[in-house]
Protein backbone atom coordinates (compact mmCIF):
# COMPACT_ATOMS: atom_id res chain seq x y z
CA UNK A 1 0.00 0.00 0.00
CA UNK A 2 1.27 3.42 -0.89
CA UNK A 3 0.10 5.25 2.17
CA UNK A 4 1.94 5.38 5.43
CA UNK A 5 -0.10 4.23 8.39
CA UNK A 6 -2.17 7.17 9.54
CA UNK A 7 -1.66 8.40 13.07
CA UNK A 8 -4.62 8.41 15.36
CA UNK A 9 -6.01 11.92 15.37
CA UNK A 10 -7.16 13.60 18.47
CA UNK A 11 -10.66 14.70 17.65
CA UNK A 12 -10.74 18.49 17.96
CA UNK A 13 -14.52 18.69 17.71
CA UNK A 14 -15.93 16.66 20.56
CA UNK A 15 -19.32 18.21 20.14
CA UNK A 16 -19.67 17.18 16.53
CA UNK A 17 -17.53 14.09 16.37
CA UNK A 18 -20.46 11.73 16.47
CA UNK A 19 -22.91 13.45 14.21
CA UNK A 20 -20.50 14.91 11.72
CA UNK A 21 -19.16 18.46 11.56
CA UNK A 22 -20.48 18.97 8.06
CA UNK A 23 -23.54 17.27 6.78
CA UNK A 24 -25.80 16.96 3.78
CA UNK A 25 -29.24 15.94 5.01
CA UNK A 26 -31.25 14.31 2.20
CA UNK A 27 -29.95 16.89 -0.22
CA UNK A 28 -31.12 17.11 -3.79
CA UNK A 29 -29.73 19.70 -6.14
CA UNK A 30 -31.01 20.34 -9.62
CA UNK A 31 -29.79 22.81 -12.19
CA UNK A 32 -32.86 23.17 -14.36
CA UNK A 33 -33.52 19.72 -15.78
CA UNK A 34 -30.15 18.36 -14.60
CA UNK A 35 -30.20 16.48 -11.30
CA UNK A 36 -26.71 16.94 -9.89
CA UNK A 37 -27.48 15.33 -6.53
CA UNK A 38 -30.40 13.11 -5.63
CA UNK A 39 -31.40 12.68 -2.00
CA UNK A 40 -27.83 12.44 -0.77
CA UNK A 41 -27.01 11.88 2.88
CA UNK A 42 -23.41 12.46 3.72
CA UNK A 43 -21.66 13.38 6.95
CA UNK A 44 -18.08 14.48 7.46
CA UNK A 45 -16.68 13.49 10.84
CA UNK A 46 -14.24 15.66 12.73
CA UNK A 47 -10.58 14.86 12.06
CA UNK A 48 -11.08 12.51 9.16
CA UNK A 49 -10.06 12.74 5.56
CA UNK A 50 -12.91 11.65 3.41
CA UNK A 51 -12.54 11.29 -0.34
CA UNK A 52 -15.49 11.83 -2.61
CA UNK A 53 -14.78 9.53 -5.48
CA UNK A 54 -16.65 9.38 -8.73
CA UNK A 55 -16.44 10.00 -12.45
CA UNK A 56 -16.84 13.45 -13.97
CA UNK A 57 -20.35 14.73 -13.57
CA UNK A 58 -21.04 12.50 -10.57
CA UNK A 59 -21.95 15.46 -8.39
CA UNK A 60 -18.70 15.76 -6.40
CA UNK A 61 -18.20 19.43 -7.11
CA UNK A 62 -21.85 20.17 -6.44
CA UNK A 63 -21.50 18.57 -3.02
CA UNK A 64 -18.46 20.76 -2.29
CA UNK A 65 -20.25 23.91 -3.45
CA UNK A 66 -23.18 23.09 -1.18
CA UNK A 67 -20.83 22.68 1.79
CA UNK A 68 -19.31 26.08 0.98
CA UNK A 69 -22.68 27.78 0.81
CA UNK A 70 -22.07 28.77 -2.80
CA UNK A 71 -25.28 27.10 -3.87
CA UNK A 72 -28.43 26.24 -1.99
CA UNK A 73 -29.95 22.78 -2.07
CA UNK A 74 -33.12 22.29 -4.11
CA UNK A 75 -34.34 20.02 -1.33
CA UNK A 76 -32.86 18.98 1.99
CA UNK A 77 -30.50 20.80 4.34
CA UNK A 78 -26.78 21.49 4.58
CA UNK A 79 -25.07 22.19 7.87
CA UNK A 80 -21.44 22.99 8.60
CA UNK A 81 -20.26 23.31 12.21
CA UNK A 82 -23.90 23.17 13.14
CA UNK A 83 -24.69 26.33 11.18
CA UNK A 84 -25.52 27.66 7.77
CA UNK A 85 -22.59 27.06 5.39
CA UNK A 86 -23.01 30.55 3.89
CA UNK A 87 -22.59 32.35 7.24
CA UNK A 88 -19.40 34.35 7.75
CA UNK A 89 -18.96 32.56 11.12
CA UNK A 90 -18.78 29.31 9.18
CA UNK A 91 -16.56 30.63 6.41
CA UNK A 92 -13.77 31.71 8.76
CA UNK A 93 -13.37 28.07 9.82
CA UNK A 94 -13.37 26.67 6.31
CA UNK A 95 -10.80 26.69 3.52
CA UNK A 96 -11.49 25.74 -0.06
CA UNK A 97 -9.57 24.83 -3.16
CA UNK A 98 -11.87 25.03 -6.14
CA UNK A 99 -11.41 24.50 -9.83
CA UNK A 100 -11.15 27.93 -11.33
CA UNK A 101 -10.93 29.08 -14.92
CA UNK A 102 -8.75 32.08 -14.36
CA UNK A 103 -7.01 33.69 -11.42
CA UNK A 104 -5.88 37.33 -11.62
CA UNK A 105 -2.52 36.96 -13.27
CA UNK A 106 -0.79 40.21 -12.43
CA UNK A 107 -0.66 39.65 -8.67
CA UNK A 108 2.35 37.94 -7.18
CA UNK A 109 2.04 34.66 -5.32
CA UNK A 110 2.83 36.32 -1.99
CA UNK A 111 0.25 39.03 -2.62
CA UNK A 112 -2.50 36.54 -3.35
CA UNK A 113 -1.76 34.72 -0.11
CA UNK A 114 -1.42 37.94 1.90
CA UNK A 115 -4.87 39.05 0.70
CA UNK A 116 -6.62 35.78 1.47
CA UNK A 117 -4.92 35.54 4.86
CA UNK A 118 -6.37 38.94 5.75
CA UNK A 119 -9.92 37.54 5.59
CA UNK A 120 -9.29 35.19 8.52
CA UNK A 121 -9.09 35.98 12.23
CA UNK A 122 -6.13 33.73 12.92
CA UNK A 123 -4.24 33.05 9.69
CA UNK A 124 -0.91 31.33 9.25
CA UNK A 125 2.02 33.66 8.65
CA UNK A 126 2.35 34.16 4.88
CA UNK A 127 5.80 32.57 4.86
CA UNK A 128 4.44 29.45 6.51
CA UNK A 129 1.70 29.15 3.92
CA UNK A 130 4.28 29.59 1.19
CA UNK A 131 6.44 26.93 2.77
CA UNK A 132 3.63 24.40 3.14
CA UNK A 133 2.57 24.82 -0.47
CA UNK A 134 6.16 24.61 -1.67
CA UNK A 135 6.05 28.13 -3.06
CA UNK A 136 8.91 29.82 -1.24
CA UNK A 137 11.02 30.26 -4.36
CA UNK A 138 8.01 31.44 -6.32
CA UNK A 139 6.71 33.98 -3.82
CA UNK A 140 7.61 37.02 -5.90
CA UNK A 141 6.45 35.58 -9.22
CA UNK A 142 3.31 36.81 -10.84
CA UNK A 143 0.57 34.23 -11.01
CA UNK A 144 0.38 34.47 -14.79
CA UNK A 145 3.90 33.15 -15.37
CA UNK A 146 3.47 30.00 -13.26
CA UNK A 147 3.10 26.51 -14.69
CA UNK A 148 -0.23 24.80 -14.22
CA UNK A 149 1.14 22.69 -11.37
CA UNK A 150 2.49 25.77 -9.62
CA UNK A 151 -0.87 27.48 -10.07
CA UNK A 152 -2.55 24.52 -8.36
CA UNK A 153 -0.17 24.96 -5.45
CA UNK A 154 -1.12 28.62 -5.11
CA UNK A 155 -4.79 27.63 -4.95
CA UNK A 156 -3.85 25.09 -2.28
CA UNK A 157 -2.03 27.82 -0.35
CA UNK A 158 -5.14 30.03 -0.52
CA UNK A 159 -7.17 27.17 0.94
CA UNK A 160 -4.89 26.63 3.93
CA UNK A 161 -3.60 30.16 4.64
CA UNK A 162 -6.49 31.00 6.96
CA UNK A 163 -5.61 28.05 9.17
CA UNK A 164 -9.14 26.62 8.82
CA UNK A 165 -10.46 23.63 10.75
CA UNK A 166 -12.20 22.16 7.74
CA UNK A 167 -10.78 21.97 4.22
CA UNK A 168 -12.50 21.25 0.95
CA UNK A 169 -10.17 20.31 -1.87
CA UNK A 170 -11.86 19.90 -5.22
CA UNK A 171 -9.61 17.76 -7.43
CA UNK A 172 -6.47 19.16 -5.81
CA UNK A 173 -3.97 17.24 -7.91
CA UNK A 174 -5.42 17.87 -11.34
CA UNK A 175 -2.63 18.99 -13.66
CA UNK A 176 0.16 18.04 -11.26
CA UNK A 177 3.04 15.84 -12.34
CA UNK A 178 3.84 12.76 -10.28
CA UNK A 179 6.39 14.44 -8.08
CA UNK A 180 4.20 17.44 -7.32
CA UNK A 181 1.28 15.14 -6.61
CA UNK A 182 3.28 13.17 -4.04
CA UNK A 183 4.43 16.40 -2.40
CA UNK A 184 0.89 17.65 -2.13
CA UNK A 185 -0.23 14.32 -0.67
CA UNK A 186 2.47 14.69 1.93
CA UNK A 187 1.24 18.15 2.89
CA UNK A 188 -2.35 16.95 3.02
CA UNK A 189 -1.31 14.17 5.43
CA UNK A 190 0.45 16.72 7.61
CA UNK A 191 -2.69 18.82 7.83
CA UNK A 192 -4.57 15.74 8.89
CA UNK A 193 -2.03 15.08 11.62
CA UNK A 194 -2.67 18.60 12.90
CA UNK A 195 -6.28 17.59 13.42
CA UNK A 196 -7.81 19.24 10.37
CA UNK A 197 -10.81 17.71 8.74
CA UNK A 198 -10.47 17.33 5.00
CA UNK A 199 -12.91 16.55 2.23
CA UNK A 200 -11.35 16.00 -1.14
CA UNK A 201 -12.77 14.99 -4.46
CA UNK A 202 -10.94 12.91 -6.97
CA UNK A 203 -11.63 10.53 -9.77
CA UNK A 204 -8.57 8.46 -9.04
CA UNK A 205 -9.07 5.51 -6.73
CA UNK A 206 -5.31 5.51 -6.21
CA UNK A 207 -5.41 9.02 -4.78
CA UNK A 208 -8.33 8.28 -2.52
CA UNK A 209 -6.59 5.14 -1.36
CA UNK A 210 -3.33 6.93 -0.61
CA UNK A 211 -4.93 9.64 1.50
CA UNK A 212 -8.36 8.87 2.79
CA UNK A 213 -9.65 7.37 6.01
CA UNK A 214 -12.93 6.87 4.25
CA UNK A 215 -14.04 6.80 0.65
CA UNK A 216 -17.49 7.78 -0.46
CA UNK A 217 -18.32 6.86 -4.02
CA UNK A 218 -20.98 8.87 -5.76
CA UNK A 219 -22.38 8.39 -9.20
CA UNK A 220 -25.08 10.37 -10.95
CA UNK A 221 -25.70 12.31 -7.77
CA UNK A 222 -26.35 9.30 -5.56
CA UNK A 223 -24.23 7.51 -3.01
CA UNK A 224 -22.92 4.17 -4.28
CA UNK A 225 -20.58 3.08 -1.54
CA UNK A 226 -19.12 4.32 1.69
CA UNK A 227 -16.24 2.57 3.39
CA UNK A 228 -12.56 2.39 4.23
CA UNK A 229 -10.13 2.28 1.30
CA UNK A 230 -9.61 -1.45 1.95
CA UNK A 231 -13.33 -2.14 1.79
CA UNK A 232 -13.82 -0.08 -1.33
CA UNK A 233 -10.85 -1.63 -3.09
CA UNK A 234 -12.08 -5.13 -2.34
CA UNK A 235 -15.30 -4.23 -4.02
CA UNK A 236 -13.69 -2.94 -7.16
CA UNK A 237 -10.95 -5.56 -7.42
CA UNK A 238 -12.72 -7.24 -10.25
CA UNK A 239 -11.82 -7.97 -13.82
CA UNK A 240 -13.70 -8.56 -16.99
CA UNK A 241 -12.84 -11.71 -18.94
CA UNK A 242 -13.95 -11.68 -22.51
CA UNK A 243 -13.65 -14.89 -24.51
CA UNK A 244 -15.25 -17.04 -27.15
CA UNK A 245 -16.38 -20.25 -25.52
CA UNK A 246 -18.80 -23.08 -26.21
CA UNK A 247 -19.85 -23.11 -22.58
CA UNK A 248 -23.35 -21.87 -21.96
CA UNK A 249 -23.65 -18.73 -19.83
CA UNK A 250 -25.77 -20.66 -17.34
CA UNK A 251 -22.81 -22.99 -16.76
CA UNK A 252 -20.23 -20.23 -16.51
CA UNK A 253 -22.39 -18.35 -14.05
CA UNK A 254 -22.15 -21.26 -11.60
CA UNK A 255 -18.34 -21.28 -11.52
CA UNK A 256 -16.80 -20.08 -8.25
CA UNK A 257 -15.56 -16.47 -8.47
CA UNK A 258 -17.95 -15.43 -11.22
CA UNK A 259 -20.14 -12.45 -10.46
CA UNK A 260 -21.98 -11.90 -13.68
CA UNK A 261 -22.05 -13.24 -17.21
CA UNK A 262 -23.15 -11.41 -20.31
CA UNK A 263 -23.28 -12.27 -23.97
CA UNK A 264 -21.71 -9.78 -26.32
CA UNK A 265 -22.30 -10.97 -29.91
CA UNK A 266 -20.24 -14.16 -30.30
CA UNK A 267 -18.30 -13.56 -27.09
CA UNK A 268 -19.01 -14.22 -23.45
CA UNK A 269 -18.12 -11.49 -20.95
CA UNK A 270 -17.47 -12.66 -17.41
CA UNK A 271 -17.29 -10.32 -14.49
CA UNK A 272 -15.10 -11.78 -11.77
CA UNK A 273 -13.39 -10.92 -8.53
CA UNK A 274 -11.00 -13.89 -8.92
CA UNK A 275 -10.10 -13.90 -12.62
CA UNK A 276 -7.21 -16.36 -12.27
CA UNK A 277 -9.42 -19.03 -10.71
CA UNK A 278 -12.11 -18.51 -13.29
CA UNK A 279 -9.64 -18.78 -16.15
CA UNK A 280 -8.23 -22.05 -14.77
CA UNK A 281 -11.69 -23.54 -14.68
CA UNK A 282 -12.56 -22.29 -18.14
CA UNK A 283 -9.46 -23.91 -19.62
CA UNK A 284 -10.36 -27.19 -18.01
CA UNK A 285 -13.95 -27.14 -19.16
CA UNK A 286 -13.50 -25.87 -22.71
CA UNK A 287 -10.43 -26.78 -24.72
CA UNK A 288 -11.56 -24.64 -27.65
CA UNK A 289 -11.77 -21.41 -25.72
CA UNK A 290 -10.22 -18.52 -27.68
CA UNK A 291 -9.85 -14.76 -28.04
CA UNK A 292 -9.29 -14.25 -24.35
CA UNK A 293 -9.01 -10.70 -23.03
CA UNK A 294 -8.77 -9.72 -19.40
CA UNK A 295 -9.40 -6.07 -18.49
CA UNK A 296 -9.85 -4.18 -15.27
CA UNK A 297 -13.34 -2.98 -14.79
CA UNK A 298 -13.38 0.79 -14.56
CA UNK A 299 -14.32 2.24 -11.26
CA UNK A 300 -17.63 3.43 -12.56
CA UNK A 301 -18.40 0.11 -14.19
CA UNK A 302 -17.41 -1.78 -11.10
CA UNK A 303 -19.72 0.24 -8.96
CA UNK A 304 -22.54 0.15 -11.40
CA UNK A 305 -22.31 -3.61 -11.41
CA UNK A 306 -22.25 -3.48 -7.65
CA UNK A 307 -25.53 -1.62 -7.47
CA UNK A 308 -27.19 -3.97 -9.91
CA UNK A 309 -26.56 -6.96 -7.66
Amino acid sequence: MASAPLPAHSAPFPRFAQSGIAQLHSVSKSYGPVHALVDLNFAVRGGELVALLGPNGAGKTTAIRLFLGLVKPTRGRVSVFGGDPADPETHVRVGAMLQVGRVPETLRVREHIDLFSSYYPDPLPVDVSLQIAGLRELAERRFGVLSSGQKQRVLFALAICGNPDLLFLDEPTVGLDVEARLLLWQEIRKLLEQGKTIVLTTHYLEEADALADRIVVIHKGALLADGTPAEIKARVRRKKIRCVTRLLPEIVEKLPGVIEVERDREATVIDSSRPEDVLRQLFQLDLTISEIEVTSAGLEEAFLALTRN
Partner: protein
Amino acid sequence: MAATLSIFEPGRLGPNLVTICLKEAKYEFLKSLRYPMFSISTLLFPLMFYVLFGLVMGPQTIGNVRSTLYLIPAYGTFGVMGASLFGTAASLAMERGLGWLEVKRASPMPLFAYFVAKVVMSMIFSVSNVLALVLMGAAFGGVHLPGSILFKLVVTLVAGSLPFCAMGLAIGYFAGPNSAPAMINLFYLPMSFCSGLWLPFMFLPKFIQRVALFLPAYHLSQLALNLVGGGQGGTYLRHWQMLAGFALISLGVAWVGHRRDEKAHG
Protein backbone atom coordinates in the same frame (compact mmCIF):
# COMPACT_ATOMS: atom_id res chain seq x y z
CA MET B 1 -13.30 23.94 24.11
CA ALA B 2 -12.60 27.57 24.83
CA ALA B 3 -10.41 27.75 21.77
CA THR B 4 -13.18 26.36 19.61
CA LEU B 5 -15.80 28.71 20.92
CA SER B 6 -13.76 31.89 21.15
CA ILE B 7 -14.21 32.35 17.44
CA PHE B 8 -17.85 33.10 17.99
CA GLU B 9 -17.15 35.96 20.32
CA PRO B 10 -17.75 39.29 18.70
CA GLY B 11 -14.50 40.92 17.72
CA ARG B 12 -12.90 37.55 17.11
CA LEU B 13 -14.96 37.26 13.99
CA GLY B 14 -11.99 38.32 12.01
CA PRO B 15 -10.15 41.38 11.01
CA ASN B 16 -12.42 44.38 10.77
CA LEU B 17 -14.10 45.38 7.58
CA VAL B 18 -12.00 48.50 7.08
CA THR B 19 -8.75 46.54 7.19
CA ILE B 20 -10.04 44.04 4.66
CA CYS B 21 -11.38 46.77 2.38
CA LEU B 22 -8.05 48.59 2.41
CA LYS B 23 -6.07 45.48 1.60
CA GLU B 24 -8.54 44.41 -1.04
CA ALA B 25 -8.34 47.88 -2.61
CA LYS B 26 -4.57 47.89 -2.49
CA TYR B 27 -4.33 44.64 -4.39
CA GLU B 28 -7.12 45.57 -6.75
CA PHE B 29 -5.10 48.66 -7.59
CA LEU B 30 -1.82 46.76 -8.06
CA LYS B 31 -3.59 44.13 -10.13
CA SER B 32 -5.05 46.75 -12.47
CA LEU B 33 -1.94 48.92 -12.58
CA ARG B 34 0.07 45.94 -13.81
CA TYR B 35 -2.49 45.18 -16.46
CA PRO B 36 -1.36 47.50 -19.27
CA MET B 37 -4.51 47.07 -21.31
CA PHE B 38 -6.31 48.80 -18.46
CA SER B 39 -3.78 51.16 -16.94
CA ILE B 40 -2.24 52.45 -20.16
CA SER B 41 -5.50 52.93 -21.98
CA THR B 42 -7.36 54.64 -19.15
CA LEU B 43 -4.53 57.02 -18.42
CA LEU B 44 -3.16 57.54 -21.89
CA PHE B 45 -6.20 57.94 -24.13
CA PRO B 46 -7.65 61.06 -22.50
CA LEU B 47 -4.17 62.55 -22.31
CA MET B 48 -3.50 61.75 -25.93
CA PHE B 49 -6.76 63.37 -27.02
CA TYR B 50 -5.87 66.41 -24.99
CA VAL B 51 -2.48 66.68 -26.64
CA LEU B 52 -3.92 66.24 -30.12
CA PHE B 53 -7.02 68.42 -29.91
CA GLY B 54 -5.92 70.84 -27.23
CA LEU B 55 -2.22 71.37 -27.73
CA VAL B 56 -1.37 70.35 -31.29
CA MET B 57 -4.39 72.09 -32.86
CA GLY B 58 -3.19 75.36 -31.44
CA PRO B 59 -4.97 78.05 -29.45
CA GLN B 60 -8.68 78.35 -30.13
CA THR B 61 -11.70 79.32 -28.13
CA ILE B 62 -14.72 77.17 -27.42
CA GLY B 63 -17.57 79.39 -26.34
CA ASN B 64 -15.68 81.95 -24.30
CA VAL B 65 -13.10 79.53 -23.00
CA ARG B 66 -9.70 78.67 -24.39
CA SER B 67 -9.66 75.18 -25.84
CA THR B 68 -6.70 74.12 -23.68
CA LEU B 69 -8.79 74.93 -20.62
CA TYR B 70 -12.15 73.71 -21.95
CA LEU B 71 -10.77 70.30 -22.83
CA ILE B 72 -9.47 69.56 -19.32
CA PRO B 73 -12.95 69.00 -17.79
CA ALA B 74 -14.17 67.44 -21.05
CA TYR B 75 -11.44 64.83 -21.33
CA GLY B 76 -11.36 64.60 -17.57
CA THR B 77 -14.94 63.36 -17.69
CA PHE B 78 -14.03 61.05 -20.54
CA GLY B 79 -11.11 59.59 -18.57
CA VAL B 80 -13.09 59.22 -15.36
CA MET B 81 -15.82 57.37 -17.22
CA GLY B 82 -13.26 55.05 -18.80
CA ALA B 83 -11.53 54.28 -15.52
CA SER B 84 -14.85 53.62 -13.78
CA LEU B 85 -16.52 51.56 -16.48
CA PHE B 86 -13.50 49.41 -17.34
CA GLY B 87 -12.30 49.25 -13.73
CA THR B 88 -15.52 47.67 -12.54
CA ALA B 89 -17.21 46.02 -15.50
CA ALA B 90 -14.28 44.32 -17.19
CA SER B 91 -12.85 42.72 -14.07
CA LEU B 92 -16.24 41.80 -12.62
CA ALA B 93 -17.32 40.11 -15.86
CA MET B 94 -14.03 38.23 -16.02
CA GLU B 95 -13.96 37.16 -12.38
CA ARG B 96 -17.64 36.23 -12.38
CA GLY B 97 -17.41 34.29 -15.60
CA LEU B 98 -14.23 32.35 -14.95
CA GLY B 99 -14.69 31.24 -11.37
CA TRP B 100 -12.46 33.62 -9.43
CA LEU B 101 -15.38 35.37 -7.75
CA GLU B 102 -16.57 31.97 -6.61
CA VAL B 103 -13.22 31.25 -4.96
CA LYS B 104 -13.50 34.58 -3.16
CA ARG B 105 -17.07 33.89 -2.12
CA ALA B 106 -16.00 30.56 -0.68
CA SER B 107 -13.57 32.50 1.52
CA PRO B 108 -14.71 34.75 4.38
CA MET B 109 -14.22 37.85 2.22
CA PRO B 110 -17.18 40.20 2.68
CA LEU B 111 -18.68 40.81 -0.76
CA PHE B 112 -18.89 44.48 0.20
CA ALA B 113 -15.08 44.69 0.28
CA TYR B 114 -14.88 43.23 -3.18
CA PHE B 115 -16.99 46.03 -4.65
CA VAL B 116 -15.49 48.79 -2.55
CA ALA B 117 -12.05 47.73 -3.79
CA LYS B 118 -13.09 48.09 -7.40
CA VAL B 119 -14.61 51.52 -6.79
CA VAL B 120 -11.60 52.77 -4.84
CA MET B 121 -9.22 51.47 -7.49
CA SER B 122 -11.23 53.20 -10.24
CA MET B 123 -11.20 56.42 -8.24
CA ILE B 124 -7.43 56.38 -7.90
CA PHE B 125 -7.17 56.10 -11.66
CA SER B 126 -9.76 58.85 -12.04
CA VAL B 127 -7.80 61.24 -9.85
CA SER B 128 -4.54 60.42 -11.62
CA ASN B 129 -6.24 61.02 -14.90
CA VAL B 130 -7.52 64.47 -13.96
CA LEU B 131 -4.20 65.50 -12.42
CA ALA B 132 -2.32 64.37 -15.53
CA LEU B 133 -4.54 66.53 -17.71
CA VAL B 134 -4.11 69.52 -15.43
CA LEU B 135 -0.33 69.07 -15.39
CA MET B 136 -0.20 68.75 -19.14
CA GLY B 137 -2.32 71.89 -19.51
CA ALA B 138 -0.11 73.81 -17.11
CA ALA B 139 3.12 72.69 -18.74
CA PHE B 140 2.20 73.10 -22.40
CA GLY B 141 -1.19 74.80 -22.68
CA GLY B 142 -0.64 77.83 -20.50
CA VAL B 143 -3.53 76.81 -18.26
CA HIS B 144 -3.14 77.76 -14.62
CA LEU B 145 -6.06 76.60 -12.55
CA PRO B 146 -6.36 78.19 -9.10
CA GLY B 147 -6.05 75.63 -6.32
CA SER B 148 -9.66 75.98 -5.26
CA ILE B 149 -10.95 75.29 -8.79
CA LEU B 150 -8.59 72.35 -9.17
CA PHE B 151 -9.82 70.94 -5.89
CA LYS B 152 -13.45 71.34 -6.93
CA LEU B 153 -12.73 69.78 -10.30
CA VAL B 154 -11.16 66.70 -8.76
CA VAL B 155 -13.91 66.32 -6.17
CA THR B 156 -16.65 66.76 -8.77
CA LEU B 157 -15.18 64.26 -11.17
CA VAL B 158 -14.38 61.68 -8.51
CA ALA B 159 -17.80 61.95 -6.86
CA GLY B 160 -19.34 61.94 -10.31
CA SER B 161 -17.51 58.73 -11.15
CA LEU B 162 -19.75 56.77 -8.80
CA PRO B 163 -22.70 56.50 -11.22
CA PHE B 164 -20.30 55.08 -13.80
CA CYS B 165 -18.93 52.58 -11.30
CA ALA B 166 -22.53 51.54 -10.71
CA MET B 167 -23.08 51.28 -14.44
CA GLY B 168 -19.91 49.20 -14.67
CA LEU B 169 -21.28 46.77 -12.10
CA ALA B 170 -24.50 46.51 -14.10
CA ILE B 171 -22.58 45.74 -17.29
CA GLY B 172 -20.22 43.40 -15.45
CA TYR B 173 -23.14 41.32 -14.22
CA PHE B 174 -24.58 40.85 -17.69
CA ALA B 175 -21.51 40.70 -19.92
CA GLY B 176 -19.47 37.57 -20.55
CA PRO B 177 -15.76 37.51 -19.70
CA ASN B 178 -14.75 38.01 -23.31
CA SER B 179 -17.50 40.29 -24.49
CA ALA B 180 -17.24 42.76 -21.60
CA PRO B 181 -14.74 45.23 -23.16
CA ALA B 182 -16.77 45.39 -26.37
CA MET B 183 -19.97 45.88 -24.44
CA ILE B 184 -18.43 48.65 -22.32
CA ASN B 185 -17.27 50.48 -25.44
CA LEU B 186 -20.75 50.18 -26.85
CA PHE B 187 -21.93 52.42 -24.02
CA TYR B 188 -18.77 54.39 -23.43
CA LEU B 189 -17.90 55.73 -26.87
CA PRO B 190 -21.34 56.78 -28.19
CA MET B 191 -22.19 58.32 -24.83
CA SER B 192 -18.93 60.28 -24.83
CA PHE B 193 -19.63 61.61 -28.29
CA CYS B 194 -23.25 62.53 -27.64
CA SER B 195 -22.37 64.27 -24.39
CA GLY B 196 -19.90 66.55 -26.09
CA LEU B 197 -16.74 65.08 -24.66
CA TRP B 198 -15.01 64.85 -28.03
CA LEU B 199 -16.62 67.61 -30.06
CA PRO B 200 -17.67 70.54 -27.89
CA PHE B 201 -21.33 70.34 -27.07
CA MET B 202 -22.39 73.44 -29.02
CA PHE B 203 -21.03 71.93 -32.23
CA LEU B 204 -23.27 68.87 -31.96
CA PRO B 205 -26.47 68.53 -34.00
CA LYS B 206 -29.59 69.68 -32.17
CA PHE B 207 -31.18 66.24 -31.83
CA ILE B 208 -28.03 64.84 -30.24
CA GLN B 209 -28.01 67.75 -27.81
CA ARG B 210 -31.53 66.74 -26.83
CA VAL B 211 -30.49 63.10 -26.35
CA ALA B 212 -27.59 64.26 -24.22
CA LEU B 213 -29.95 65.59 -21.58
CA PHE B 214 -30.63 61.96 -20.63
CA LEU B 215 -26.98 60.90 -20.49
CA PRO B 216 -25.03 60.90 -17.23
CA ALA B 217 -21.83 61.81 -19.06
CA TYR B 218 -23.45 65.05 -20.20
CA HIS B 219 -24.45 66.00 -16.68
CA LEU B 220 -21.06 65.20 -15.18
CA SER B 221 -19.19 67.07 -17.91
CA GLN B 222 -21.46 70.09 -17.43
CA LEU B 223 -20.72 70.12 -13.71
CA ALA B 224 -17.01 70.03 -14.50
CA LEU B 225 -17.21 72.59 -17.32
CA ASN B 226 -19.20 74.98 -15.15
CA LEU B 227 -16.15 75.22 -12.90
CA VAL B 228 -14.13 76.77 -15.74
CA GLY B 229 -16.99 78.78 -17.23
CA GLY B 230 -17.62 76.43 -20.15
CA GLY B 231 -20.98 74.96 -19.16
CA GLN B 232 -24.27 75.15 -21.00
CA GLY B 233 -26.27 76.16 -17.97
CA GLY B 234 -28.57 73.96 -15.97
CA THR B 235 -28.40 74.03 -12.20
CA TYR B 236 -25.98 72.03 -10.06
CA LEU B 237 -28.91 70.44 -8.33
CA ARG B 238 -30.43 69.27 -11.60
CA HIS B 239 -27.15 67.72 -12.82
CA TRP B 240 -26.51 65.92 -9.54
CA GLN B 241 -30.11 64.71 -9.44
CA MET B 242 -29.74 63.19 -12.89
CA LEU B 243 -26.46 61.54 -11.90
CA ALA B 244 -27.95 60.16 -8.69
CA GLY B 245 -30.99 58.84 -10.54
CA PHE B 246 -28.78 57.17 -13.09
CA ALA B 247 -26.65 55.63 -10.33
CA LEU B 248 -29.75 54.18 -8.66
CA ILE B 249 -31.04 52.70 -11.91
CA SER B 250 -27.62 51.15 -12.58
CA LEU B 251 -27.44 49.68 -9.08
CA GLY B 252 -30.91 48.26 -9.60
CA VAL B 253 -29.81 46.58 -12.82
CA ALA B 254 -26.65 45.29 -11.10
CA TRP B 255 -28.80 43.90 -8.28
CA VAL B 256 -30.99 42.07 -10.78
CA GLY B 257 -27.85 40.62 -12.35
CA HIS B 258 -26.52 39.59 -8.94
CA ARG B 259 -29.79 37.84 -8.07
CA ARG B 260 -29.82 36.17 -11.47
CA ASP B 261 -26.32 34.81 -10.84
CA GLU B 262 -27.29 33.50 -7.43
CA LYS B 263 -30.33 31.78 -8.90
CA ALA B 264 -28.41 30.30 -11.79
CA HIS B 265 -25.85 28.86 -9.40
CA GLY B 266 -28.10 28.04 -6.57
